């Protein structure tokens, strides 16, 4: 089915947004909180109709929306799933999201959907594959997309690039932008022992279209910490510091709080987003002074 949207495409503002959860539909519609935008996984709205679309349509009529896919498996060998690409295109025409993003990851194999963001060895071959698939995605949707850095638990021998360089090359070759997940940088840095701040500093601000922030869990195995990206708690202070470091350099960006497990009451999530807004405002003032705008 082809949808003709009733919505005008409106851009995502450089302010805080939150990942939209069904648990908060009513709170949001009843209180109309002063928040810049919401983000959804389109896969949760690929039914024909019913309550999920009714709520999303209502919320979309009051707020800008960002579409953050988890099912396209850009890093999977073989062709992209045509059915899924059509469904994604339908979603985009139906809701006119301001941003559309996917991941540096694969999530399907041999016709089966694994429902997780699995890692790729960062090699020239993997880069070629991602370039081909991002090109196809942008062509099918007729728009620029964003690609997100993953949180990872394994590295591979024979990798030829650092993740930041891989993503920068991907953006340069395809014209896509990056969805820069600061928590993922931190989780991967702690799990693999690299310098998170150096990664944060390595990505040009002009390539960053959106930022993600989330909480994560810590598991201790044989006395060694493993950080697990579960989106199940508040953003930790180390991640806020990295975020501050990022926006101090690149200025305000659309910044999303993701909270997908142990989902809190709406005010808790809203407060988390306000923290990001406050940090962006503070740094905007500092940057403004530095650049003599005051």
């Amino acid at each position, binding site marked *: 089915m082809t949808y003709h949207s009733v919505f005008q495409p409106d851009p995502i503002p450089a302010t805080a947004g939150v990942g939209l959860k069904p648990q908060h539909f009513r709170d949001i519609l009843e209180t109309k909180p002063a928040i810049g935008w919401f983000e959804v996984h389109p896969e949760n709205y690929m039914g024909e109709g019913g309550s999920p679309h009714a709520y999303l349509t209502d919320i979309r009529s009051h707020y800008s929306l960002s579409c953050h896919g988890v099912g396209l498996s850009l890093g999977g060998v073989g062709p992209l799933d045509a059915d899924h690409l059509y469904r994604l295109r339908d979603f985009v025409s139906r809701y006119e999201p301001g941003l559309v993003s996917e991941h540096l990851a694969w999530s399907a194999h041999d016709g089966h959907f694994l429902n997780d963001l699995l890692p790729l060895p960062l090699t020239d071959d993997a880069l070629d594959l991602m370039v081909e698939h991002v090109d196809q995605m942008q062509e099918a949707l007729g728009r620029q997309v964003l690609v997100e850095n993953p949180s990872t638990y*394994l590295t591979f021998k024979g990798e030829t690039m650092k993740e930041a360089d891989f993503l920068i090359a991907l953006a340069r070759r395809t014209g896509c932008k990056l969805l820069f997940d600061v928590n993922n940088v931190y989780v991967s840095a702690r799990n693999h022992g690299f310098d998170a701040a150096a990664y944060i500093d390595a990505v040009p601000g002009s390539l960053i279209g959106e930022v993600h922030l989330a909480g994560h869990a810590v598991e201790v195995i044989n006395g060694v910490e493993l950080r697990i990206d579960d989106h199940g708690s508040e953003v930790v202070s180390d991640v806020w510091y990295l975020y501050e470091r990022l926006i101090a350099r690149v200025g305000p960006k659309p910044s999303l709080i993701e909270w997908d497990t142990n989902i809190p009451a709406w005010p808790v999530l809203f407060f988390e987003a306000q923290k990001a807004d406050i940090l962006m405002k503070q740094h905007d003032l500092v940057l403004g002074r530095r650049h003599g705008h005051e």
Partner: protein
Amino acid sequence: MNSRADNSLSDFQVRFAAAVNGAPADGLNTGDDRGIPLERRMDVYRNNVHASLIDALASAFSVVQKLVGEEFFRAMAREFLRMHMPRSRTLIGFGEEFPAFLDDFPPVATLAYLGDVARLECAWLRSYHAGNEGALGPQDFADVPEREMDGLVLTLHPGVQLFSSDFPVWSIWQSNQNGYDGPKVAQKPESVLMMRPKFAVELHLVDVATIVFVEALADGRMLGDAVEAGMKVGASFDPSRILGLFLSGGGFSRFHPTGMRGV
């Protein structure tokens, strides 16, 4: 595509997917484990894949989970995944094979009704996600002359679902909703009609005659014929009560007159 890329990455993804499903992770040519055994690192991916899919099944089949308990349900869902990983990239519709799996899963052989309870939950999900169409109310029929009513062909709203079982599925479903304080469930066949007024799925316990009546409408037969079919099955079939239910529940999306007189 670069064939070299295809070969080595393809090989990697074959091995990785096998490791996610329980094969050892060595052979993936992994880097420094920094003191955390490779298999424990791999377990994060294994757990993400399986726990998220089991969560999706638990959410789709919440009554089945209540009936067997959470721990048993999760172990059973894991067995289901061995044969039925999702094929679609959206999990809407995932688990359609679950009822048939339950029919044949030996550890629940004594719970013969379980498969049908899962079928009822599948029907609920189909109703919940069905397309949005307008719903007719009594006022929409105001201009239809009485004598032409029997000749109407009514289109069921996509949210209408029917399910008949040899087991008391409606009673089981009701008694497993929060706050249930009714009688114990007795063994008997039950039929359920679902409608979706204002996006909330409603379940109605109906008799076999009603099922026959609704199936006749779904087949595109005229209202008069459908009523007759219902009457044949059950002497107590009350068409005006059922029509009232459909009009208040948004069960019809369109009608068109055939111009034929009722019989």
